[in-house]
């Protein structure tokens, strides 16, 4: 699929999304306001926002891969994942209050995150390269969010919106991959103490490792290297659950320990 929109229209779409972050007011689906928006256009819209953010001094800390489960691919009618950019200021601390007001309509999902010890430059990256480049796996929770009204997203909408990124919480225990079977590595997700989802690494393109291969080769084709030290969120092990002020969500993994996201209650002034 090639670009359909002119540069002016793509810049306009990027401005709409940047404004939504600023005002906290979501926008209608871009595929409605900018008919003809293709996947290629959408990545350009994402990169225009990334350029604005880096120019403003924000630091890229890694990437996320989205749309990696059979269920979500069926729901959006796609057969490929997508990716977005993670910035250092999107990382929150395990068990430390997260200001819920930072988000528009946040949802949360458990992931087996990777931290790289070597750079990965695609195309041509295989599972063997990826396994060699991963320093460790670590329990994580991804906060996803949408600048599009009511999550009414199609594939180009979510790609343009930085793959619906919101925030990241990493656990505290790095685990080397040696001998870990990530495909059958289980997770139990609790919200306010109650089990809301369970899943396993196999939900992520068969294994989270596969998502990293896809990411390295996909961004590699655009001339982008995944840097040593960067964090990759390869995709969710379960469906996402809604979160709001006052909620506490804990993901307990086999082998990887647990990680907790706690959202600050709204104060009375709010």
């Amino acid at each position, binding site marked *: 699929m090639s670009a359909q929109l002119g540069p002016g229209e793509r810049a306009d779409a990027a401005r709409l999304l940047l404004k939504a972050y600023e005002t906290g007011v979501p926008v209608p689906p871009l595929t409605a306001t900018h008919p003809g928006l293709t996947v290629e256009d959408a990545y350009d819209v994402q990169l225009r926002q990334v350029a604005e953010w880096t120019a403003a001094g924000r630091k890229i800390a890694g990437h996320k891969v989205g749309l990696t489960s*059979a269920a979500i691919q069926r729901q959006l009618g796609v057969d490929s994942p997508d990716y977005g950019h993670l910035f250092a200021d999107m990382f929150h601390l395990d068990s430390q209050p997260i200001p819920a007001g930072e988000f528009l309509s946040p949802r949360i999902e458990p992931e087996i995150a990777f931290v790289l010890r070597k750079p990965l430059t695609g195309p041509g990256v295989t599972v063997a390269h990826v396994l060699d480049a991963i320093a460790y796996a670590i329990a994580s929770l991804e906060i996803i969010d949408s600048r599009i009204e009511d999550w009414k997203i199609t594939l180009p909408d979510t790609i343009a919106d930085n793959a619906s990124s919101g925030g990241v919480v990493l656990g505290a225990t790095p685990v080397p991959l040696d001998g870990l079977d990530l*495909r*059958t*590595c*289980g*997770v139990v997700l609790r919200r306010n103490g*109650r089990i809301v989802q369970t899943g396993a690494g196999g939900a992520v393109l068969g294994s989270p490792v596969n998502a990293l291969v896809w990411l390295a080769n996909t961004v590699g084709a655009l001339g982008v290297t995944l840097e040593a030290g960067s964090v990759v969120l390869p995709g969710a092990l379960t469906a996402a659950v809604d979160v709001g002020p006052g909620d506490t969500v804990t993901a307990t993994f086999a082998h990887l320990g647990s990680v907790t996201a706690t959202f600050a209650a709204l104060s009375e002034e709010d």
Partner: protein
Amino acid sequence: MNWDIDTAAAVLLEAERQRQDRGPLTDEWPELDLGTAYRVQKRLIEKKVEAGEKVVGVKLGLTSRAKQERMGITSPLTAVLTDGYVLEADVPIPLAELIHPRVEPEIVFVMGKRLEGPGVTAATALDAVESVHAGLEIIDSRYVDFKFTLPDVVADNASSARFLVGGKALSPKNLDLALEACVLTANGTVVATATGAAVQGHPAEALALAANALAARGEAIEAGQLVLTGGLTDAVFVHAGDQIGAEFTSLGSVFVTAA
């Protein structure tokens, strides 16, 4: 029709034998409540035993707390397994004998001790378990489109049709069943994942609740019996030529084809 327990059991057995799905019993017999439904189920199993089948265990259904709350119950429903439901390893699901089969992965217990409520807890239930296995259950409602109320499905022996149990047997002692994961595949593609926590928080919790509920009906789970603890994921439909697999963290894998 003049409905009673015998008639209802006979109608459901005939639907199973003729592969003919029907409307819910409760449409025609609104008085069918949960207690009566369990008596229909019992009569249906007695008829199977009269025809030469042997009772081999128990299966638990509706083992998610969220679903129980929606249905207004506080423990899993139970059904009875006979050897007529056993699918041997490497034998395809016999589509010609079933109506609209679906497959779901389960954690299966073999009981080492008799378990009789009331007063059974998850810890005492687990103590009565001899071994834990991977399993696949093939369900096949005798009702059109799997549309039924709680008494309907209980009377229909909880849609039981076939099951198979993996050959690897592990002691429950050192297993973390809440985090024991399952990856369900259809023709090689992952279609769902879950862990044992999807079953009532822990399969032993489901077993304890079921043992206590059975005691209220004057029944126990016997030593040596199998217990299918409940579907870990939503059930997937199977068609001719499909291969369904369930890969577990520690319990090994089970695969089945349909023909």
